């Protein structure tokens, strides 16, 4: 091989190497830019999600308070004779409407009595049958709430012995 050919090869090789370096640099910069944009996008999405979650949390609290109030109103008049049939019907209708409204927000009330005690959704505040291993809900003192299957608040309940192996509800408080 002649010296001229060798120089030509070297120049050619250097030119190609420089071109490769330039391309790599360009690609790296473009990759870096994409990564940067991606991290900004992720950050913005996270912020939006957090803001939406916070909004949901703040929005549902007044609804739960209202559900609580209607529950206690109904509970106060559950004893026979305290309200006329029509009055009881009014309260029951309001309660049903509220329950429907709550369901639009994905909220489900936990207030069934006579069902087995479930520590996921019930918080026992008292036990009327301390020696019994199988307990059911004797009385709901404070309703609980689920939202999209997640427990927002467990229902506060008084528990007692499950006497009937297939207990029927002792009377639903809300619809």
């Amino acid at each position, binding site marked *: 091989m002649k010296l001229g050919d060798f120089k030509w090869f070297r120049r050619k090789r250097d030119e190609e190497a420089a071109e490769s370096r330039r391309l790599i640099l360009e690609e790296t910069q473009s990759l870096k*830019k994409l990564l*940067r*944009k991606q991290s*900004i*996008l992720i*950050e*913005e*999405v996270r*912020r939006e999600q957090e*803001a939406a979650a*916070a909004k949901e949390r703040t929005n549902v609290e007044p609804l739960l308070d209202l559900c609580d*109030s209607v529950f*206690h*109103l109904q*509970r*106060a*008049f559950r*004893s026979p004779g*305290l309200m006329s049939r029509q009055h009881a019907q009014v309260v029951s209708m309001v309660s049903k409407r509220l329950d429907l409204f709550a369901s639009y927000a994905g909220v489900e009330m936990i207030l069934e009595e006579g069902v087995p*005690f479930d*520590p*996921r959704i*019930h*918080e*026992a*505040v*008292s*036990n009327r049958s*301390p020696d019994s*291993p199988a*307990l059911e809900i004797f*009385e709901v*003192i*404070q309703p609980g709430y689920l939202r999209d299957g*997640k*427990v*927002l608040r*467990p229902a*506060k309940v*008084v*528990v007692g012995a499950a006497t009937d192996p297939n207990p029927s509800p002792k009377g639903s408080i809300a619809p």
Partner: protein
Amino acid sequence: MKSLVCGIDLGTTNSVIAFLKDGYPRAIPVEEGSAILPSVVSFDPGNGSHWVGQRARNRRAAFPEDTVASVKRLMGKETLATAGQKSFRPEEISSYILKHLADRASEYLGEPIEKVVITVPAYFDDAQRRATIQAGELAGLDVVRIVNEPTAAALVYDHVRAETEVESPYVLVYDLGGGTFDVSVIEIKGEIKEVLASSGDTALGGDDFDERLKDYLLEELRRQAGREDLSEEVSLKVRLLDIAEKAKIALSDRPYVEIHEVAVAILDGKPLNLDLELSREQFEALTADMVERTMGIVEEVLREAHLDAAEIGKLILVGGATRMPAVHEALSELFDQTVAHSVDPDLCVALGAAIQGGLITGDSVGQILLDVTAHSLGIKTVDELNPETGDADHFSTIIRRNTRIPVSRAEVYRTLADNQRGVQVEVFQGESPWCSENAPVGDFFFPLEPAPAHCPVVVEFAYDREGLVRVCIDQKGCANRKEVTLDTRQRKVAQEADEPGAVETPVNYMSEKARRLAGDPRLSESVRREIQRVAASYEEAIRAGEGEDRMDELEDVLLEVMEQAEEELESGE
């Protein structure tokens, strides 16, 4: 692959697990989306299974014999915890809690958790620390380090972007949890943090404040019903405790809370309602002795550390009950300085443990940037005259600097004269006690209904991440209310009735981020102006549908200025 070291705050009432992600500590949701796990274990003697956390706590009143809570109090002692027919060493019970936390964290992170840092109170002796390590081992975990709780809390604040440089090496950590109170003084010598003194009260916590308020509500109910014999049966007690807790939380943000609770009890077949207004002042008077008790212990710890209050460089708050303003005020008064409370006080210790875990594995820990108010926000009042000008110039703070946002706070003010026609509400931001030395945010006139002097007027600020303050002013008892939105960045007033959309919405996530940075008061004016200028060109180009090359060029410039801004934020310059 480098193994992860999680941080665990194994508390008396609640426990939390956290990890370090990209240099930032994060608490892991372990139960129904919550990061806070009650430190309770309940057993089913029938089949030997057990529950941990909220479910165990929910079983406590139903199966008290089978449920163990507050086992931390027994750690390192010979006393056994009994559940049903079986007895357990305290570390065995703790191991169930640790295992539950590690399992949930492992599910969340998608990788096994093998190594942990666990925090313990500063006063724990050797036996108690050894028992904690054993609990970890029983849970199948490698406890790589035991860290003092106040040290962990201080570690978090080491990485929070410093508000002001503090010269003193002494830090006081005030930890008021649900059922216990601890206070420690730490000396920081470079990387080393030494606990100089520590004390506390194992029978004082936020629950006692709820209990005190519940007793007051019961008395109030008896008074309203005219029946001293109204007994505190279970359902009434549960209901009143719930009401008390909600009221306590509400009073941390506002000066009054209205309690309208239907049928809290049934008396002679009739519902007994609780209908009253409670002021923060009343609540603080009811519970003042408990705050004083904690302050007595704080002074005792200072004496033990041979320090004066003035020598403490930083005050750190830990525990949910420290959200009560009375705690902030008592500490600010004793130490004549503001308190560091911007990190969630329920999670702070676990986050510190996660940072310690990261440091052990050689991870770099970033500066924790919190969404906090950069300046205090308040209004001008006539409480004090400026000695230099003789003008009414007092700056009354409503939202303190470094408060986490979004936040809502209210304070009550009183009118000066009978039938006062109105008030000029002047909003400022800054740290000077004089409005003239702070930055004006905006002002507006609020007409008042005729009322005698000293009529209460509640001013509420709701501050969001975008730098907007919604000012709500309410003349109490007169159904007279007004809402105004102020922009702390642009210093302009936008009445509720103003036409929306005066400012065009951001074009995409890039301009959204750029706008937020342009409004960040922690950045220098020149950087903010530059971002604003570049973002405006970028948005204009997008709206005009400019070509790809031009957009690429503008995007590069925008990314560059935003990067510079973030570097400035991180360096704290």
